């Protein structure tokens, strides 16, 4: 029950934040959701680049070098990321310090595993460009390609 309440409150703040900071781009609900997603990615990107715990203030200052964004908006989205399990936070004085739960490399590796995993049963990627081959097959193909290259040149 408490969880539901928290979620509802979060949704409300989240919408307020959208109106405070992001409406200048307009574009219906889909547009707003996309802006929100982009801001999430931007915050994660900052923290991954710095590779150290950081406050919302620091993130806002960094983003403000490129475009204006409200402090409250970034704070709300950082809270969303914390609730989604992307960020850890700890109090330092009066401000929260945020840290990514996992490194960008760890997520990338997980994505690759998910998409290219050797399992027969993989509904994620339709098919990746090539699958694994044995060394003998690779050698045979190298030979075929070389022969073909010679023929093309001749």
């Amino acid at each position, binding site marked *: 029950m408490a969880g539901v309440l928290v979620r509802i409150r979060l949704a409300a703040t989240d919408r307020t934040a959208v109106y405070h900071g992001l409406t200048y781009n307009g574009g219906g609900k889909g547009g707003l959701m996309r802006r929100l997603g982009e801001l999430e*990615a931007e915050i994660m990107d900052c923290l991954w680049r710095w590779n150290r715990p950081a406050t919302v203030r620091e993130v806002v200052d960094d983003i403000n070098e490129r475009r204006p964004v409200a402090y409250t908006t970034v704070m709300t989205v950082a809270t969303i990321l914390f609730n989604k399990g992307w960020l850890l936070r700890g109090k330092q004085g009066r401000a929260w310090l945020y840290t990514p739960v996992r490194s960008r490399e760890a997520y990338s590796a997980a994505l690759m595993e998910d998409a290219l995993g050797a399992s027969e049963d993989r*509904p994620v990627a339709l098919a990746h460009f090539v699958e694994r081959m044995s060394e003998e*097959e690779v050698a045979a193909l190298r030979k075929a390609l070389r022969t073909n290259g010679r023929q093309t040149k001749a």
Partner: protein
Amino acid sequence: MNAAPALMGYAVAIGYVAPQAMLRSSWPHRAPALAASVWHALAVSFAMSVALAAYQLASPTEHLHAGLVGILHSCGVVLSMGTGDPNTADLMAIALPVAVLLALLLSFAFHVARGRRARSRHRNVLDMVGRHCGQLHATVIEHASPAAYCLPGRRSRIVVSEGAVQLLSTDQLDAVLEHERAHVVGRHHLVFAAAEAFTTVFGRVPLARHAKEQTAILLEMIADDRALRRHSHDVLASAMYEMAAAHAPKGAFAAGGHSVSVRIQRLLGPRREAHPALWGCVAAAAVAVPLLPLLVAFCSPGHA
């Protein structure tokens, strides 16, 4: 005389003999799109003949009906309304074929939904972790091993790893991305889901097993052909080789890798277009095959 034996014979021919004939012929790799539609036509034809045979077997006007009810009875299925009741028989005659078709539809829906769920989960992480590259029109993920794949469907993504960007030349990378784009544009995930659905329902029949396998490789060839519209055979073949060679595990077990070999050999081999007459015949067969069971069912001698 009932059409059920003829339909069952037809189903056996389509389910067991036709796949062998398809695998032995060489035209499918020259006309992959046509071949994929023939595999699907065979699947539809098989499903229809099974459904119609079920209908004929359970039909109350036929002798075999009594036999079927007897078999069910001996298997412990007790029909509450009694064996002689024409209502039950009517119900069975409709319910059996409907069940076959419903199973296929549900299985298709299941595979589509499962894929969509898995992709959306993947995309959520991808959008956070990957960097969209406007120049490539693709999402790049920081990973050293070269890879390229796509997430088809709504909000599709073309994904390429940093390793692949490093490994391939601009032309090669373009060809690879064009290949992936072809999957998305052609909605290949739905074509494959249909093949998967058929395999889930009729898994034991050779046609089902081969249809799924062949659909997968034919879809790759269709995407290859689309990439060839803008890039040379050599560029695509060498891109494929570079990616495959970088993937080869050292002394480890390599699973199911030969479809890449087949695809590269196809690109390097003599370029023979399928003859227009052959095209016409096969296309006509693809249209006719799903209709044949109906013909067998309703034009068989003695059909009341």
